[in-house]
């Protein structure tokens, strides 16, 4: 279980994340939603142990996140981060060298599905191909927690389906999946819960099915309601 206790992160006078407390439980797929600059990426980076919180703590299985939690948490950044000299195959080998839960077979399979060749150089890949590679190498891990920051950015409609399928395939009773995206409609059919972040604060956590059934509102409309101050919903 991944739990955040009153986590705050300040950068030179700017508060990126302000007192966020959330709990992510295994067996669920979460969407982290919010406009640009709301603090989604900063929170994810803190949960991945890449950034240290100014105050508060994020715990994985009751232990503060750190070096050992990186064994179980697979984080995919929104920005490309592979070394320039790497080929697609080198990226897989790199993950195999560092993560015990990485499966080269699963990676090869996903590369095939996503139409990526191992000999291609990372610096020569288009942004869409890089996005697919990031997803493939992250999802080829058999991690306990997956955090994907904007995995649908820069990829075409068909590739989006492949990415979403990969996400669904990895969902399981002992796994936590957290996906941040602006493409709310596309996530709606995939996620169980939506975490709304607004101006560095937690704006609410909603069960998507409950929104549909009891509040008669789609996730996209809830998004509009939270961020656009529009009143949505009505009779079911």
């Amino acid at each position: 279980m991944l739990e955040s206790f009153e986590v705050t992160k300040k950068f030179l006078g700017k508060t990126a994340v302000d007192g966020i407390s959330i709990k992510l439980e295994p067996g669920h797929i979460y969407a982290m939603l919010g406009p640009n600059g709301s603090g989604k990426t900063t929170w994810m980076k803190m949960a991945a142990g890449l950034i240290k919180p100014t105050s508060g703590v994020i715990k994985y299985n009751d232990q503060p996140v750190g070096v050992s939690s990186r064994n179980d948490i697979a984080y995919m950044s929104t920005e490309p981060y592979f070394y320039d000299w790497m080929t697609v195959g080198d990226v897989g080998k790199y993950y195999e060298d560092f993560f015990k839960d990485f499966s080269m077979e699963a990676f090869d399979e996903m590369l095939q599905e996503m139409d990526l060749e191992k000999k291609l150089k990372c610096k020569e890949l288009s942004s869409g191909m890089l996005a697919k590679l990031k997803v493939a190498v992250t999802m080829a891990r058999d991690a306990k927690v997956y955090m994907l920051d904007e995995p649908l950015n820069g990829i075409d409609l068909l590739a989006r389906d492949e990415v979403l399928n990969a996400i669904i395939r990895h969902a399981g009773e002992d796994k936590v999946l957290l996906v941040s995206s602006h493409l709310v409609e596309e996530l709606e059919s995939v996620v169980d819960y939506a975490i709304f972040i607004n101006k560095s604060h937690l704006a609410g956590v909603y069960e998507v099915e409950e929104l549909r059934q009891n509040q008669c509102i789609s996730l996209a409309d809830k998004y509009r309601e939270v961020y656009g101050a529009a009143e949505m919903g009505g009779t079911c």
Partner: protein
Amino acid sequence: MGALIKYEFRKSWKMKGLVLCFTAFFELLFLLGIWRLNEDLLAASCTGLVLTTICGLFLIGVYGIHILSKDINTKQSYMLFMTPNSSYKILGAKVIENCGSVLVSGVFFIALSILDMMLLVVRYDDVQGLIDLMSVAITGDVGNFNYQGFGMACFDGVMGWVYLICLGYLAVVICATLLKGNRFNGLLSFVAFLVISLVVNHIHDAIYGDLYIYSMTRLISNVGFYALLTLLFYLITAWIMDNKLSV
């Protein structure tokens, strides 16, 4: 740790390969000069070998500092810091790979120069004048020169450089952590580098005196002093990374 060292080497092998190519080229010229007893060729190759040694060791060290800077200041930092390795291991791999490369290269260049000097002694009868000149330069006296002393004096120089590389690591990490966001962080960390190296120099002079006295004991003790400093700066840098670095 092995995987980290492997990838550190992968990042810098081209630079090392280039230094090796230059060395091989000048060494071939030197051997040609020895074979043909061509003094012009010998002078040019010796100059080339000395320059390659100095520039090679300098470039390998500085390039390592550049790689660390890139590894903590760009998005490529995720490649290192999302892996289940502590900052101590990540920096340790860099120190072992880069300082190890400098040390191995240093030992290689020392061995090569001793070998070349021996070749010169065998091939030329009047090379003793040159050896005496080197003896005065290194030991301060004619006739004190021996190959072990020469090797240790060079090794002392290499260790002095290794400690400076670790100090460079510290400056880069200070720039990316304690001074992050400061407009003049690059300049300030460079000033910190200069100030710390001056302080270390004063401490060194306070312990050993500011006059260079040639003796094997002194050289070994000097190497130990720089090895201790290397360890100290590694520990400080890794601690700052572990506690303050956000990538």
